[in-house]
C-alpha cells in the first residue's frame, strides 16, 4: 500500500505542474487550451536540447521554461488574441489546431524516435516500498514550483493583479490594470509550468512526440475534477486522480476476493481518468462555471 501511495504522489506531481497551467489560463481567458499539452512536450524537448549543450538540469529546465513561456505568448499574439471575440468553444477548437501543428512540428524537428534523459538515480527502500532519488527530485521540484506560484499570486502586486483580472476583467481595467500585459504574463507562466511538467514527465518515462497522448487525459481529468479555473483544485484533482489510478491498477483485487492474484491491466489507467471526468461532469457541473484564480 505504501508503494501505491508513493507512486501516486510522484505521478500526481508530474500531472499537477502541467494542470495548474491550464487552470491559470482558463481562469483568465475562459477556454481550455489543448495546445497546453504540446507546450509540455515542447518543454521536454527544449530541456533535452539544452542538456545536449552540456547544461546542468536546473539551468536546462529553467531555459526550457522561459522559451516555452515565450512560445505561449507568441501563440497568444498570433492565434488567440485575434480570436478573442469568439465563443470559448471556437477558441478551444482553435487551440486543438495549434496542438496538431505543434505535434507535427516537434516530430519534424526532433524526429519520431523516443529519447531518454541521461540521469543516474539512487534507489531507497522504505519498508517494502521503493523510491528513487529521481522520484524525490520530481516531488521536491513540484512542491517548490507550487510554493513559488502561490507566493507570486498571493504575495506580489502583479500576482494579485492577475487574480483581479481573472475575477473581473472589466473592473481590473478600470483600476488601471493593463489586461493585455497581464494576460501575456499569465501565458508565460502557463507555458513555463507546462515545460517544467513536461520535463518531469519525460524524466520519469521518456521523451517522444506522442507523449502528449499520455499527458492529455490525466491532465484534463485533473483540472475537470478540480474545477477548471482553480489552481488548488487542479493540484487536488491531480492527487485524487493519481491515487484512483494507482489503486485501480496497483491493488491485487484477485487476492481480496479469492486466493488467485488478479490486477486490473495497466492499460485501464486512461479509462479511470475518463471515468473520473464523467463522474465529475455528471455530479458537479456548477464547479466548472466558477471563476477567478483560487
Amino acid at each position, binding site marked *: 500500500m505504501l508503494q501505491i501511495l508513493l507512486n501516486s504522489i510522484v505521478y500526481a506531481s508530474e500531472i499537477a505542474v502541467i494542470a495548474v497551467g491550464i487552470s491559470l489560463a482558463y481562469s483568465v481567458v475562459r477556454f481550455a487550451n489543448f495546445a497546453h499539452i504540446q507546450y509540455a512536450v515542447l518543454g521536454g524537448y527544449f530541456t533535452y536540447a539544452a542538456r545536449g549543450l552540456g547544461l546542468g538540469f536546473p539551468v536546462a529546465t529553467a531555459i526550457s521554461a522561459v522559451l516555452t513561456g515565450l512560445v505561449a505568448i507568441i501563440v497568444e499574439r498570433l492565434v488567440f488574441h485575434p480570436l478573442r471575440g469568439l465563443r470559448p468553444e471556437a477558441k478551444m477548437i482553435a487551440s486543438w489546431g495549434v496542438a496538431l501543428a505543434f505535434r507535427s512540428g516537434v516530430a519534424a524537428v526532433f524526429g519520431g524516435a523516443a529519447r531518454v534523459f541521461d540521469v543516474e538515480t539512487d534507489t531507497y527502500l522504505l519498508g517494502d516500498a521503493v523510491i528513487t532519488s529521481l522520484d524525490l527530485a520530481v516531488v521536491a521540484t513540484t512542491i517548490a514550483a507550487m510554493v513559488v506560484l502561490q507566493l507570486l499570486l498571493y504575495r506580489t*502586486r502583479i500576482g*494579485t*493583479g492577475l*487574480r*483581479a483580472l*481573472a*475575477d*473581473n476583467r*472589466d*473592473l*481590473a*481595467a*478600470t*483600476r*488601471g*490594470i*493593463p*489586461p493585455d500585459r497581464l494576460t501575456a504574463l499569465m501565458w508565460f507562466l502557463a507555458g513555463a509550468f507546462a515545460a517544467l511538467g513536461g520535463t518531469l514527465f519525460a524524466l520519469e518515462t521518456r521523451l517522444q512526440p506522442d507523449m502528449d497522448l499520455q499527458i492529455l487525459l490525466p491532465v484534463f481529468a485533473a483540472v475537470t475534477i478540480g474545477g477548471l479555473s482553480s489552481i488548488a483544485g487542479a493540484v487536488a484533482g491531480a492527487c485524487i486522480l493519481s491515487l484512483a489510478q494507482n489503486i485501480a491498477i496497483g491493488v491485487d483485487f484477485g487476492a481480496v476476493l479469492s486466493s488467485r492474484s488478479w490486477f486490473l491491466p495497466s492499460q485501464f489507467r486512461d479509462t479511470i481518468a475518463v471515468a473520473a471526468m464523467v463522474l465529475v461532469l455528471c455530479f458537479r457541473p456548477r464547479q466548472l462555471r466558477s*471563476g*477567478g*484564480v*483560487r
Partner: protein
Amino acid sequence: MSVPPESRAAGAALRLDAVSAGYGPLVILDRLSMALRPDEILLVLGANGSGKSTLLKTVMGLTTITGGILHKDDVDITRWATHRRAAGGIGYVPQNNNVFAGLSVRDNLGMGAYLQPAKRAAAQEAVLDLFPRLRERLGATAGALSGGERRMLSIALTLMADPAVLLLDEPSSDLAPAMIDLVFAAIQRIRRERRIPVLLVEQNVARGLAIADRVVVLVRGSVAADMPAAAVQRDHLHALFLHGSVGAAPAIQAQRSVP
C-alpha cells in the same frame, strides 16, 4: 459639425462632443454632448434605456465609440483604452460587479492603488476613515460582504487611485435607507474634501437632487435638458421620462441653463 453650447464649457473636467457609442452594432448614445465642470456633482437622469449607464461606461472606455470626441481636461481621450483612462484620473464605480468578489477586502483596496503602490498605505487610511466599517472586514472575501459593505468597498477601491473625476452608477440601488444615507453622506464628503467633480447616475431622484449641483436628462441617448438642480421641478421630470421628449415638459425647456 456644430458643437452645442454645453460642450464648450471652458476648463471642463470632462467634455463629450457629439459622442455616439454603444455595444457592437447597438448604438445607445446618439451624438451626445455635455460637459462636467470642476467641483460639481452632475446628476444624470433619464428613463430606463435612455443611456445613463452607457454614458459612464463610454467615459470609462467600456463601450464602442462610433463618433464624436471625448475630452478630459482638454485632452482627447476618445481612443484611449480603459486602463489608460484610469491612469489618467478617471475613477468609475459600476452599479454591479463592482468589487473583485474572489479577493479579500485588503487585496481589493490594493488593486485600487495598483498604479500607485507607494501611496497605498496613506490612501487606505483615508478610505477606511471614510468607511470605518471596512476596517473590521479587511480580511474578509469581498464576495461575502453585505450589499452595503460591498457598495462601500466599490467606492473605496475607486478612491484608492486618487481619481480626478468620479463616475458613480446608481450608488443607492438595492440598499436599505440607512445605508443610502451613509453612502450619500460619503459622496458629499468626497466632493468636499477631495474637491473632485462627480458624474452621478441615480434612479432615486430625490436623493440625487439633494446633493447635485446640476442635472442633465437623457432621452434616447441624447441630452434633452440641462439645468441647475435647484431649478428642477419633479412633475416635469416625470413627464419627460414618461413621454420621452422635451416637448412633453415645456417648463424644463424654459429653465434650461446655458453654461
